């Protein structure tokens, strides 16, 4: 279910649903939830299953119960579009959450920050905390290690005998971690790996770590330490 990795002296535990937990800071990081997307579709006459939108909240609750975080930080694109009834479900969830809630704004977050603040949430354009710089869009920097979302990373894998698969993943580079999208019904974008890139792939209930070592276009397994 989980995979742990050390980054800039901090320990992060990745969960197979796409969340990352920063042990020392007791902070749960979640990116690209895109709440309201399902309702948005339904409003336009496409009957996307309603149960799927409830699943987002069920998972949030389970993760909170498992990690008991002091803070939950959303790395942008929390809400997909304009306010709709899914907001009420989100509101309900915030009442039940014991953690401090923070939103680092993303391009989809067009809702007024006041709405979040009414719920006791803090809204930040970006967040410098410890050795990390938290943003929605992946940022280039030499100073700090960047943790971001936005691109919904996935990696395409192939093997002998023409095997092919494409799976969402945590995307780790020398100075950056990009989280997979957490929301149901959000889709993903395929990354073309470069030397040194690491991927922690969401494989059902499990996580598999891969690394692009020397050879071009070839990934190798990275057994958990």
């Amino acid at each position: 279910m989980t995979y742990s990795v050390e980054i800039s002296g901090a320990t992060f535990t990745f969960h197979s649903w796409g969340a990352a937990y920063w042990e020392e800071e007791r902070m749960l990081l979640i990116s690209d939830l895109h709440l309201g997307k399902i309702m948005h579709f339904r409003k336009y006459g496409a009957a996307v299953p309603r149960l799927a939108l409830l699943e987002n909240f069920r998972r949030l609750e389970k993760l909170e119960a498992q990690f008991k975080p002091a803070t939950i930080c959303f790395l942008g694109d929390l809400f997909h579009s304009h306010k709709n009834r899914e907001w009420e479900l989100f509101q309900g969830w915030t009442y039940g959450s014991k953690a401090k809630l923070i939103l680092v704004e993303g391009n989809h977050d067009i809702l007024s920050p006041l709405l979040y603040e009414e719920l006791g949430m803090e809204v930040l354009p970006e967040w410098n905390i410890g050795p990390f710089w938290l943003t929605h869009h992946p940022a280039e920097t030499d100073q700090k290690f960047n943790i971001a979302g936005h691109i919904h990373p996935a990696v395409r894998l192939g093997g002998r005998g023409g095997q092919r698969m494409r799976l969402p993943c945590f995307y780790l580079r020398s100075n950056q971690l990009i989280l997979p999208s957490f929301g149901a019904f959000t889709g993903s974008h395929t990354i073309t790996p470069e030397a040194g890139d690491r991927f922690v792939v969401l494989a059902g209930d499990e996580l598999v770590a891969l690394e692009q070592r020397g050879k071009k276009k070839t990934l190798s397994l990275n057994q958990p330490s």
Partner: protein
Amino acid sequence: MSSENRSYEALLGIAEMWFRKAGWLPFPFQKKTWKAFLDGYHGLLNAPTGSGKTYALWFPILLHYIQQNPEYRTKKTPGLKAIWITPLRALSQEIKQSAERIIADLEIPFEVGIRTGDTSNAERARQRKQLPDLLITTPESLQLLLASSGYPKKFASCYAIVVDEWHELLGSKRGVQMELALSRLKTVSPHLRIWGISATIGNLEQARQVLLGPESEAFDRSVMIRADIRKDIQVRSLLPETMEKFPWRGHLGLHMSEAVIPIIEASKTTLLFTNTRGQCEIWFRHLLETHPEYAGEIAMHHGSIDKDTRLWVEQAIRNESLKAVVCTSSLDLGVDFAPVETVVQIGGPKGVARFLQRAGRSGHRPGQQSRIYFLPTHAIELIEASALQEAVREQAVEDRIPYLNSFDVLIQYLTTLAVSDGFHPDEIYQEVRQTFCYQTLSKEQWAWLLNHLVLGSQSLRTYDEYKRLEVLEDGRFKVTNRGIAMRHRFQIGTIVGDADITVRYKKGGYIGTIEESFISKLNRGDVFTFAGRTLEFLQVKGMQALVRNSQAKSSKTPSWMGGRLTLSSEMSKILRDELYTANLETEKQSTEIRALQPLFDRQREESIVPGPGQFLIETFETRDGHHHIFYPFEGRFVHEAMASLLSYRISLLGKATFSLAYNDYGFELLSEEAVNIQEVLDNNLFTAEHLIEDLQKSLNMTEMARRKFRDIAVISGLVFTGYPKKGIKMKHLQSNSQLLFEVFRDYEPDNLLFQQAFTETFEHQLEEGRLRQALERIATQEVVWKDCRRPTPFSFPIITDRLREKLTNEKLADRIRRMTQILTGGK
């Protein structure tokens, strides 16, 4: 009585006189159709293209009007009289012209109008006010008319509808669209006579049932009229000079291109049929390169080329100003091309009906001989060539399998009715139940559909904002939201395959449309061939690909999805029988089989050429892994299913991951480790027992259903394809329907639309019935397993097929860990 009889005879006299003036004699089938129509019958006319079928039905439609309106020359009754449905826009001009010709001669002051996707906005607006007397349109455009308010009034005066090329529509969802439209028209046009025109197919009787409704009044009062025009068809294979240089696997057939030159030279006009648009492009270019003297004398015709160019080509064929046209199925139907003397089929046509249809394009006059040459693109296709001749002799034509319970089309239709005037469910349920497609639609399913449309689910939730249909106070189900109505109208025409992107010069100038899947693989500066031009790709802008001319020599050629056809069951049987003659004495063999002798010898070095009682299995290892090849000779679709079934069953014996490949002759399971074939045989893994359960459990089935779901999601309005030209990219839709599929799988697996994807996979993709028969046949055969050192000629076309499926029962994480080499990127 007698006076009525006279007028009846007099009416027919008008038609016969017209024929005589043109210097023709009406065929018996034409006369029969006139009489049956005038007697008030519905019916199905079985007549091939170019037989005068349009006159068989335009005449009685007009005669009926004359009968009802003795002062027809001076007084005109307003309103729509008849609708002519054609599946191809390209045919509408031709049909219009034949109607106009009669109208002019009989002095009936009728207006003939066309309404298709190509119709201008001004013309549409005019039609909105007043429909023409005779309307020529497509199934989609007819649906659009049902989406306009007050439609029942517009159709009230309509007394005839002709569905042309019904065999083309029958096995498709457009056919279902047609069934639904007819079920409505039966009510709103009380005097309607329904007629279909179909080429010969295996299940003609069923075609009539589907058209009219299986137990309907219309069916009870209907006739089947057969033109019974049998064409004299001459088939000849083009054999390579030496077999040694003949490629083993699927190719474009270019190595044989010189062989068509004398044929082109000897005829007035030659049509060269290719199976894909890509192949069409390459052949055209190749002919021009090798024979520059043909410039201006040869042309190309396929569905992606700009309409004006296509019309120009069609006109040029009629004018006899072209020596040859390289084309695809876009020229399969309709359009009378008298000057075509010869037809060349490049590569296997995969079906007898299609081949006959193409052969029929030449000598396009009753009584004239049709000549068709078959040009095999690889060695084993020669067997097909030989089989085709047999098939033509036997006239072994395929069935077209009609759809059952297509919930997606029904949802689209109900939304259509809700967009126009709204509908009362009880009334529409009765009508829908009369159709062939929905004859078994239960009350529960109907209730589910209504809930889906109104609530977007099967129960009401307060926080939900789902919006599509509303129930008005008078009980009508209606779309009240303008945006939903508008999006729906745009969506109606989208019972199609891949999304098309417009190709344009950057400086302006439309070239044609191309599938997005091809464009998406291009990078800026890439050069590709399209519409006979060499173009450099610049960028995608909205739904347009911008290009400029290029001088580059080498280029990519677009591949189009439409290319993957399968052998019909009739054709497969003939093909197997043909192959079995390889083991006979030379005298009993056809020229093609004899020509294949070197290949058979090579095949026999390590393996066998199977006989009637034998089922061949070959295994060998290459650097790709362990190949296991099976040869049922049943056509691609059956092999797809069989490969999936077998690999699933093998996986029950132990963990395994396979990649699957198939063609019309056999299929391959490729794996990292060798499969013990003896174990497969000992465990009787080819049994037809538990077929459905096993297929359902194989992962491949889900993959296939996922592909089917894409169309279902579009048709039922779960995903929106975007406004024309405004352009949401199709990739967006693609991933959306993929995502939706997963969301349904995880959260609403009992959703009827989700389940439909599986049913369609069974009935139309896997051809479960055929699969069962094939397995039963294999059970009676002796299995011959050959462990070879290297690939055999038979296996070559299969193992080099790059379109692969996979099946596994391993957990995702284990699979990744087990991959000895994990590759990334690529396509």
